[in-house]
């Protein structure tokens, strides 16, 4: 049954390659807002939700393998039944979010700062390349250096290199105990404190600074969390779980706006960024969400991010989106073009959605 679906996908790819007609690869459609608006009239939709289900999950191996069309919510619910989780806390942005979309966009949530990103937990992938070939890279074990790490290359590639079929992920136990503490302070102090604390062996699993208040989530054994709470001070927040969920899913009041939402991923110790608009900080200051009017030039925002040793993405915009991702320098762009050509020689996978050049 499942192989029939793969054969169908493969046939669609081969036909598209022959006719050079672009394919828009789509799972639950929850991250449709993300990336360049590159959808052409003649594009063919490749719906990846038909290939879904858990292939292998053995809690004591800390590895799960699932079809890319599996709903992220279903996968996380299964892990939760066994006291485990996806440590990178991927945002869903909708009930229908799929594992494939989660990996293709490569987005990670609040716990990223402590646990690692989506790419850190990918162990293996099965995918269809631009010739419709069924390929497997990596595997289901944690240590594996046979062959180039093509699996991790797929993370955040916006579907431009292949159609993901299956993904194997490392999972971790859920922390037995979590609390959130809050403390008012100014932004410069918050940035410094977050980084100082991150240099110490403290069980901080998430940080957020918004509207003059610093929020910290502490996770681990209750004894360790309570001991850290005494060291850190601050006031315990009731409903901490909902707070982090609202940051992860961008349902927090901060994000309720029609303005442009920029995502600045920069060196965490960068001093407060003085740009018009309002900001929310995560990841010890390494991630700064900027809400501002379209009148604030993208050049100044890009320059700010670059000067802070990072990059910027236009995360949400109601207008037609182009050049959403930070431009690549010529040498890097050339490598990107060449890699794209190897995986997708006819240029049919989500053309333009990542970079207009491919």
């Amino acid at each position: 049954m499942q192989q029939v679906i793969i054969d169908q996908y493969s046939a669609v790819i081969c036909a598209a390659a022959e006719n050079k007609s672009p394919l828009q690869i789509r799972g639950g459609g929850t991250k449709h807002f993300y990336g360049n608006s590159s959808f052409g009239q003649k594009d063919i939709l490749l719906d990846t939700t038909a290939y879904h289900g858990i292939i292998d999950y053995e809690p004591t191996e800390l590895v799960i393998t699932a079809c890319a069309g599996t709903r992220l919510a279903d996968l996380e619910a299964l892990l939760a039944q066994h006291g485990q989780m996806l440590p990178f806390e991927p945002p869903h942005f909708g009930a229908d979010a799929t594992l494939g979309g989660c990996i293709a966009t490569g987005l990670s949530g609040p716990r990223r700062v402590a646990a690692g990103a989506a790419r850190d937990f990918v162990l293996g992938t099965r995918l269809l390349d631009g010739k419709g070939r069924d390929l497997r890279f990596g595997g289901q074990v944690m240590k594996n250096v046979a062959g180039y790490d093509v699996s991790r290359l797929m993370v955040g590639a916006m579907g431009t290199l292949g159609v993901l079929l299956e993904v194997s992920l490392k999972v971790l136990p859920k922390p037995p105990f979590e609390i959130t503490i809050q403390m008012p302070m100014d932004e410069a102090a918050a940035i410094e404190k977050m980084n100082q604390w991150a240099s110490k062996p403290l069980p901080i699993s998430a940080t957020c600074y918004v509207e003059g208040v610093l929020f910290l989530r502490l996770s681990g054994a209750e004894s360790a969390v309570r001991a850290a709470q005494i060291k850190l001070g601050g006031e315990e927040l009731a409903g901490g779980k909902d707070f982090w969920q609202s940051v992860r899913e961008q349902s927090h009041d901060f994000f309720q706006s029609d303005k442009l939402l920029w995502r600045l991923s920069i060196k965490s110790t960068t001093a407060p960024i003085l740009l018009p608009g309002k900001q929310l900080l995560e990841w010890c200051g390494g991630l700064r969400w900027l809400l501002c009017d379209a009148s604030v030039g993208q050049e100044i925002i890009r320059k700010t991010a670059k000067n802070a040793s990072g990059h910027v993405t236009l995360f949400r915009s109601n207008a037609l989106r182009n050049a959403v991702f930070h431009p690549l320098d010529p040498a890097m762009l050339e490598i990107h073009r060449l890699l794209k050509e190897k995986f997708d020689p006819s240029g049919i996978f989500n053309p333009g959605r990542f970079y207009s050049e491919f």
Partner: protein
Amino acid sequence: MTLHELVNKLHAILPHEAVLYETEDLRPYECDGLSAYRQLPLVVVLPHTEEQIVKILQLCHATSIPVVARGAGTGLSGGALPHVQGVLLSLAKLNQIIAIDSLARMARVQPGVRNLAISEAVAMYGLYYAPDPSSQIACSIGGNVAENSGGVHCLKYGLTVHNIVKLRVLTIDGECLEIGGESLDSAGYDLLALMTGSEGMLGIITEITVKLIPMPEKAQLVMAAFDDVLKAGNAVANVIAAGIIPAGMEMMDKITIHAVEEFLQAGYDLDAAAILLCESDGSDEEVADEIKQIYSIMQQSGATKISTSRNEAERLRFWAGRKAAFPAAGRVSPDYYCMDGTIPRKRLADVLRGIEKLSLEYGLRCMNVFHAGDGNLHPLILYDANQPGELERTEEFGGKILEMCIRAGGTITGEHGVGMEKINQMCIQFGTGELAMFHAVKAAFDPTGLLNPGKAVPTLHRCAELGAMHVHRGEEKFAELPRF
């Protein structure tokens, strides 16, 4: 171009003492840590700046001369084995720690810096670099990136790929790529992941920015002896099932226990069929809680003897035996050959039984040390290179172990790399489609194939000649039948 002409051109780039071409000077570079493979290069160059490397690469590119990069030469898969017609590019002189940013928790270093030297340099800030391969006192960080090295703590702290943030890489034509950044992610494809573990096939790494993490307040170790390997394997699963991610979890089999106990008296139980070392680290409270839990899990899992380290000296003594497994192998046998497969942990007992059977079949002893937390198995085959045919038999035995790892749903290399050594087993682990894609990725970076030719990825022709059958996990006939 004659050797003389090449040397002249290199002398225009480098000081005379940084170009070696006399046989006696080349000799120390004929092999890496896998000494069974030896080859003299045409020339060895020892640049000490990135600028010099750019010029060396431009020269080699223009004249089609292969380039093999080498760090400290501690690799165990022949990845730095020289090319007979090529330049061996030693990065050992690029050994400076350029900058340490303690608040941002990162350090910018040159590729020839020793792994342990990074942790030593940042210890004053209460930070360290987590991946700790056994050779960390000698191995270089550049080599670690090339092989995606692990260590005994990677279940909790990750491999090299999880602990670096940025690379400067030169392509074969001397172009510089800045990959990654000082932010937690970067624009474009994840080339940082692609470069890590690429075995010197895609580019030459000239600078690495590593992530530093806070040193845990405390570490403590539980040592448990078992009368059965299966029980020890179950104990590992029980620890994980309890929601504990130990900082380190190592297993040794009987023959290893005896070899190391004879070598240095670590206090191991000689009656045990397997010994498990399980370490907890973190804050005082966390460690106290976790050690209590681990202790009772070991009891419930049928351990015959359990000890908890009472102080730092005792913890290090318990570890000493495990860390001395390789030298101990060298004591009980003239030569040993270290394998590096990874398997799903639940298959451990099957695979160990299979190895035991092969050991009898080939008439060669085999010690097994196991990174039990992450499934990475290091069988050490004991042999004597002076006995005719014994090395060949050893290699065949090793190859069989790797094939067994693939069949068990694992991989032929967990952390040592494919290099020259496991090139044939790549034909079994991957199909022609995957291998073709690896060659295509290589071609995107190095279209003329001058970087480390012949390593890491076999040609399709080689696989065809070998006649090896590619095994897809669970797709072979009667996959459920034991084959060992």
